[in-house]
Every structure is written in structure tokens, then in C-alpha cells.
């Protein structure tokens, strides 16, 4: 288990997740990069800027 850096949700990490992989937080949709496995750690991955031009 690890906590989302953006919204604090607890995220399950399946065993075959590797460092460097991206996981999406189910609550806030933030893309998180796995930076450690023991203990599990994540950081916000660079978000591509979305501009609907509205």
C-alpha cells in the first residue's frame, strides 16, 4: 500500500509493479511514478498540460 501524493488516497500496488512504472490514482486520476518498492514510494509524474482552448 502507498499514499497518493496529491489526494492522500491509499493505493494498492500489485506485486509485479516495478520502479519507474506509472500508476493512476483511482480517486484523483493523478499519474504517479513508482520510485521505490520496499517501502513502496511514489511521486507525481509530469502531467501533459491539457488545454481545451476554451
Amino acid at each position, binding site marked *: 500500500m502507498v499514499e497518493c501524493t496529491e489526494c*492522500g*488516497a491509499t493505493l494498492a500496488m500489485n506485486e509485479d509493479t516495478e520502479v519507474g512504472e506509472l500508476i493512476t490514482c483511482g480517486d484523483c486520476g493523478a*499519474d504517479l511514478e513508482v520510485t521505490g518498492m520496499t517501502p513502496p514510494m511514489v511521486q507525481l509524474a509530469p*502531467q501533459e498540460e*491539457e488545454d*481545451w482552448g476554451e
Partner: protein
Amino acid sequence: MLRVNVLGGSGYTGGEVLRILATHPMVEVGIVTSSSNAGKPLHQLHPNLRGVLDLTFSPRERLDHAEVLMVCVPHGRAMEMMPQLLQNADKVIDLSADHRLRDPADYPTWYGITHPHPENLQRFVYGVPELHREQLRSATAASGPGCMATAANLAMLPLFKAGLVEERHIIVDVKIGSSAAGVEVNISTHHPERANVVRAYAPTGHRHTAEVEQELAPYNGGRKPRIDLSAHAVDMVRGILATCHLRPRGEVTDKDLWKAYRDAYGAEPFVRVVNQKAGLHQLPNPKVLLGSNFGDVGFQLDPRGERIVAFGAIDNLVKGAAGSAVASMNLMCGLPERTGLEFPGLHPV
């Protein structure tokens, strides 16, 4: 099986109650009254019920006793009839505004009429499970909520529960669809006038304000917060979005907000927290809720401080009326709360 009668089945709220009850596994629809349409098949007014609920409208005199009575008559008429209606069923749910307010003095203020049977008001529980679930389990009478009030209450409840906001200077800016005005025709819902509008109406003094202040008070030390509501008709048939602007109390972070909404709604069957970083559907949007009993809530902290924006989106006919009525019925009759209310909504629509 539960036998349920519907008093006043010809309007949009009555039609939506019938649509939900028609596919509710534990309900058998009994008498459906409509004085002006007696003898006609339901599907003549509710075409979606053709081949689904093959009943005809009955005159009101035919109303017999049933386990549950759904009252879908216009505001002002339910309050007069209620003493007699309470004999007609073990449990009564009044979808009109006539039994929503607890304080009889609120009726002259907000509805301009004196309540003829104030003694009944205490017996009715406000029919929003997220606010009164335990009371509803043992209630014999419940009032359907106001649709705008429901969107606003769902949006702001977590902020009051966690004590994160001031109790004044709360702006609730509502956008609402045409079905909320009901089936009666008038110039304001005449298509050439109603299509493509963004028409402000009741910028102050909207009646649903009373319910929001009443229902949030218990989470504000018992004091009614002051809610400043304005409503706009927009180009939708179903749907409400309530955009609430509040002042944070002291230092409030994004994580505080997430915790408040997660604590308030983590276990709720019908409320979803929609606050996404990416994609088209980042914040609550009534368009994706048509026909579903979900209430979507979201929030955003103003980076310049001094403002929290909270959103509440619902389908005014479902979570804002018939869906909450059926969820209340389920609780009152000891059924699982989601029974008959699983429809996920449509996308795209």
C-alpha cells in the same frame, strides 16, 4: 412484494417514480391516480412505460390502502390532503415541498402560505439518506427533497462536517434544466423561448434556500448558515449543477478537502467524488447523470486563497426527486438502499 400506490401520476415526478418502480424487483405498482387522465393508459403520458407498466390512470376516489403511498401532487395540495392520506398507507412519501421544512414559520416566509397542518411537519423525515439515513429506517413519513437544495447540500456537507468554512458569504450559483418546471406548459418553457437560454431567475429569495440552511445547521453548531442562492435556466431538460463559493475557515489545504469529502462520502452508495487531474470529465457534470441516482461532488481550492469552490451535480428528477424518494422508501421498508436504483446513467447522451 411491496404494493405501492402513486397519487398524482401524470406529472414528470410521478412519471419518474413510476419508471423506477416499474423495474424495482420488490415493488408491485398498485393504483396510479390522475383525475384529469382517468381511464387513459400510463404510456400515453409516459411513452417510455409502453410495454413496461401496462396500467391505466385511476380517479382519486379509487385510491385504496397500500403499504406505501407516493404523493406527487403539486405544492399546496398535498398539505391539505395529508391528514386523510396518512390513513391510506403504512408509509407515505410526499414529493412536494409541503412537508420539507421543520419550522412552520418558514412556510409563510419562503412559500407565502400558512401551513394548515403544522402538527404533521414533525412526523416527516427529510428524505435524503446522506443526511437522515438512521431516522429514515424507522420513519413512517418522509418528504422528497427540493432538487436544487439536494445538489447544494451534497456539495457543501463535507465542508461543514469538517468545520472548514465560514457560515456566511456563501454563494450558490445553480444551473438547471427545464424538466424541473414540471409538465404544465407556460411561456417560459415554450421551446422558442426556452431553447439555448442562460436565463437567470430568482437571483435572490429562491425557496430551496430554506432547505439548505435547515439541513446544514446541525453541522454548524445548530446555527443556520446564510446561503445566497441564484438560479439560471440553461439548455438542458434534466440536470442541475450547483456551484458553491465559500470562505475557508483558517488554513485549509487540498488534502484537508480530500479528507473531508472522503470521510463524508467514502461509504455512500450514491455519492461519487469527481475531482480528476486529467481527461474531459474532471469535475461533476449533470450530463453524465441522466436517469441515474448518483450525486457527483467535486471541489477546488483557489490558489489565491480565501475561496473554496464546491460542485454538486444531480439529475433533478432522480437524485433530486424520485430516486431519493425510492431510496427513502427502501430504508423505511428495510430493503437494501440501492434496490431498483442501479441504473448507471448514459454516456454519451
